[in-house]
């Protein structure tokens, strides 16, 4: 009985990996998020943490396979559509798209320096102590 409950909890709340992509945040990031929350953040519909800290979504400009899969599986938009979605939002005054960083060094620095930063990276990236992998629930 307890084993079943534990199994369900483990299934519902874990560091979810999407085709080798993970979500990382600043170590001071306290909120727990669902997959739908992450989708809303990258689509600009959720811009705040529960304490109203501004969120700074980001990803690598080079768009490796894991990031591309993340857009399709989690954001529910292939990258090309994601890009078109943001073009409409930016030009109509509805905010700015997630930040694109040139290399992993810049991305990790960005996340470690911004409390509200949340980024997509490959699960092969080595993380330092200022960054944590965000557990996601369904």
């Amino acid at each position, binding site marked *: 009985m307890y084993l079943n409950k534990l199994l369900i909890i483990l299934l519902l709340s874990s560091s979810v990996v999407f085709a080798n992509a993970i979500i990382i945040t600043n170590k001071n990031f306290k909120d727990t998020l669902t997959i*739908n929350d992450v989708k809303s953040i990258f689509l600009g*519909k959720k811009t*705040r943490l529960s304490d109203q800290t501004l969120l700074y979504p980001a990803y690598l400009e080079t768009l490796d396979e894991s990031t591309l899969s993340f857009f399709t599986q989690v954001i529910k*938009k292939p990258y090309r559509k994601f890009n078109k979605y943001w073009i409409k939002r930016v*030009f109509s005054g509805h905010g700015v798209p997630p930040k694109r960083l040139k290399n992993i060094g810049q991305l990790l620095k960005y996340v470690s320096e911004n409390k509200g930063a949340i980024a997509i990276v490959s699960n092969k990236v080595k993380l330092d102590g200022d960054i944590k992998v965000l557990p996601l629930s369904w």
Partner: protein
Amino acid sequence: MKFISNKFIFIILLLPFANLLATPWDKIRLNGYSSFEFEQELTNTDIKGDPYGSFDADLFDLVLNIQATDRLRISTDITFEHGASTENGRGNVAIEYAFAEYTVSDLLKVRTGKMFSAFGIYNEIHTAKPATIQVKEPRATNKPDKLTTGLSATRFFPRWNTGIGLVGSSEKYDYIIQLSNGDQEEVDADTNPYEADNNTQKALTGRYRYSPTDNLRLGFSFHHDLFTGANADINKSTEISSYGIQLNWESDKAAIELESVYGSLDFVDENNATVNEKIERVGATLLLSYSLTEVLTPYLEFEYFDPNLDIKEDEISIIIAGINYEIDSNFYLKLEVDRVSSAENNSLYLGRFSSEIKAAVAIGF
């Protein structure tokens, strides 16, 4: 001594910019877009279109977003249209929008300034050509003044407004409500609607959109205002009410956009009593597209506009067939043929038809 005083003056001169310097550059985003077009009327050159076939340096826009604080965002779009050259009085330079947005929460943001009227699918993106698949926004729902004359040609809603807006969004829906000066019919009127209203009635504009699934979005828009100027010869005010519905659906390759607007113009005197026949109008647009490859998307657009429901045989219908080719990321080539057909009582087209070819290169950055 002289060196010290110069240094002191230099620091004093820099003080007004201290606030700007305090804003880290990663809080400022510069984007923009540009469009270059070609149009040629093929048939009835005496109606409107361009008989010679002309190039048009349509627009170059800079879009600036400044995250001044965690809660305050400044957003503006500055446009240079038709090769703006003020020395020769050609083209124009304009602020498409410039507003401050204060975030209380994602469900409530407060905007003040000049904004695009939030009505329907196109008005908020009508200048951003990389964001639309076709060359121009649909006339039947956005530009009735291109399809008829007289009072019926009054747009369903003003393109811009100055006032206060409330904005909010969640995973499934978003809304925007704007209270503004509204429109003024006469462009050369004494007052500028972005500076002062010429009546006490404020315009109310709003839109609500709901996404039941990732692929489908439904929406409803409204606009209401009482403005002076239209039919001013008999000193009346015009009450304008417009209601729109919209549907956006897309799959991996296919997409459908459907929009319909009903609008009425009610002419009233100073006691709000109707003094002339009400004009009721409807416009509808259907856009179908299908991506043959990742970069090549043919499209078909159907438009219908009835300028006055009480007048028979004054309708206009438009069919547009085109192709959109994405040359590079956010760099598009568009080619299309527009065919306009009119019924005999249409006051602009007089029962004639027109065919026009249009091409555009649109770039977003």
